[in-house]
């Protein structure tokens, strides 16, 4: 481990007293109330909770997609509350890999182009990013599907492409919001195996949400969202 990351410490996520509330007409919904969470580098952490408990909301806050109503979040040493929207975009581009329940691939782009996309945002040269994207696709076992477009692929394959897209820039943190909820049981298992393998082999920190008990078993630690303290 290099000096820089040692300075930042072993904490990838440090969330303290994070609260998020939404106004619905005259009423307030507060899915997250003063939540504290610390994630160590290399963890394979599951956020559990029933539907509507605030898992997506929490992941959005950690990933710099949304801002908390109060509280502080530091990711890889970066205090998110100090960033403006452009800086948040840059933070996401550099530090976060996202995996979604609905895969969210760009339908007009091929598998390879989808994986290249995050590298375009990092202004990488075409030849370099192509090589990295090929490598990432190979790591998820899709080297034969380079030219396929998302509509021509199965759910499991699409989620593999999405995992390659999240991993291609080798981010310190990958956030996965119910990555297996739209997949059948067997494929869900395979996807989780793949994520666990990447976590083990590359040391990438994963935080994923799920409400599936079988998936929870695989986590190195479980954090319950929406539990009354």
């Amino acid at each position, binding site marked *: 481990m290099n000096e820089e990351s040692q300075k930042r410490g072993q904490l990838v996520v440090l969330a303290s007293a994070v609260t998020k509330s939404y106004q619905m007409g005259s009423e307030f919904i507060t899915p997250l109330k003063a939540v504290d969470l610390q994630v160590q580098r290399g963890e394979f952490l599951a956020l559990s909770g029933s539907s509507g408990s605030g898992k997506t909301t929490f992941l959005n806050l950690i990933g710099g*997609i949304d801002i908390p109503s109060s509280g502080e979040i530091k990711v890889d040493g970066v205090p998110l509350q100090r960033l403006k929207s*452009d800086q948040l975009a840059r933070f*996401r581009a550099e530090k976060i890999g*996202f995996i979604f329940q609905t895969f*969210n691939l760009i339908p007009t782009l091929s598998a390879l182009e989808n994986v290249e*996309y995050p590298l375009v945002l990092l202004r990488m040269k075409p030849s370099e990013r192509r090589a990295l994207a090929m490598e990432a696709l190979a790591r998820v076992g899709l080297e034969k599907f380079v030219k396929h477009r998302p509509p021509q692929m199965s759910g499991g394959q699409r989620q593999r492409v999405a995992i390659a897209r999240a991993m291609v820039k080798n981010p310190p943190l990958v956030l996965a919001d119910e990555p297996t909820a739209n997949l059948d049981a067997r494929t869900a298992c395979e996807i989780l195996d793949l994520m666990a393998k990447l976590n083990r082999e590359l040391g990438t920190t994963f935080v994923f949400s799920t409400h599936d008990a079988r998936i929870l078993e695989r986590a190195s630690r479980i954090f319950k969202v929406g539990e009354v303290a």
Partner: protein
Amino acid sequence: MRLKIAIRNVFRNKRRTALSIAMIAGGVSAMLVFNGFALSVLINLGTKTIQTQTGHLQIATNVYWDKSADRPKDTLIAGAKQLQKELHKHPKIAFASGRLSFFGLLTAGDRTLSARGVSFEPQVEGDLGASFKFIEGRGFTKDELYHVALGSGLATRLHAKSGDSLTLLSHTYDGVVNAIDVTVTGIFQVGIAEFDDNNFLIPLSAAQTLLDTDNIEQMIIRLHNTSDTEEVRGEIQARLRGGATVKPWTEVAVLYQQITKFNEVQNRIMAFIILSLILLGILNTIGMSVFERTGEIGTVAALGENSRTILWQFLLEGGVLGLLGAISGMVLGTILIVVINWLEIKVMMPGASTDIIIKIGFFFRAFLDAGFLAVASAIVASFIPSWRASQMNIAEALRRNI
């Protein structure tokens, strides 16, 4: 990559794209046909004006131009022959010809009409066949003196035909009434009703005899190329002694000026209507596209696109759409112009004395303008929906993925 994404997105919804491309293409081609027609008419009118009335350049005394002379004879240019000789040495000048114009009474049998006589010099201009269209008879030969050629409207009203003998009555610059007998050599038709109804042509020396002068009112200069007008004007003006000014035809031709102005206004209105159509079409297309792709916008924002690059991406799509529309419009416009020219449609233009066959020209400038307008308005129209896309709440946009 961004351009690739833009192009693929444009072709994502084929029907909608086809519709908006058709809309832009329709606008662009309409503009090309319309402008091509208007410009052709204008160039045609300009050529006719130069050939039959103004030449490219006109030299006259300042008192003639500003109409400040006490006596008509003070407006005349003396020493015209010497001036003409000098002008003929210039390589870009086709010829210089003296003009006198005057009002006179033409009598044919028991009919008498007032008409405007314009002098020509068959010695330098030839028989006028190159400039005037004769529907009967011909212009003048070099040594015909007491002859006239009548405008078609004037000839009709006089019941005169070529070979007829007329009496031409006017008064000299000293105010003495004078008359000569003239023979009609032919009947011409310029195509401008006002001109054909009121004018007759007469050799300069006959006019000078009638008006009792050796001088001329204007020196008309014809160039080999219209595009040399400004350059030659400058050279001549520099050599003219004070008291005389040379003016380009565009300054003198009133009808041409009026029609040019009218065309400009008309073009602007036309462009405005077409632009509005393009604006609405693109606004709708890109607006729908942004709406449908809300989830996708959320995704790319999550991946790290900032609002500026999202804005650019959608503007680029609008631009691609505009460009495709512009290109299709140019192709369509070209086809339309070729077909319309081939059909040889006849129309009566305002102020014309005969039908003309519609002839639409291709003008590089018109293509450039129409293309630029289409692309620019497409981008402008994309701005509103693109802005909306760039300002979306990412978390909410992401929830739209299903």
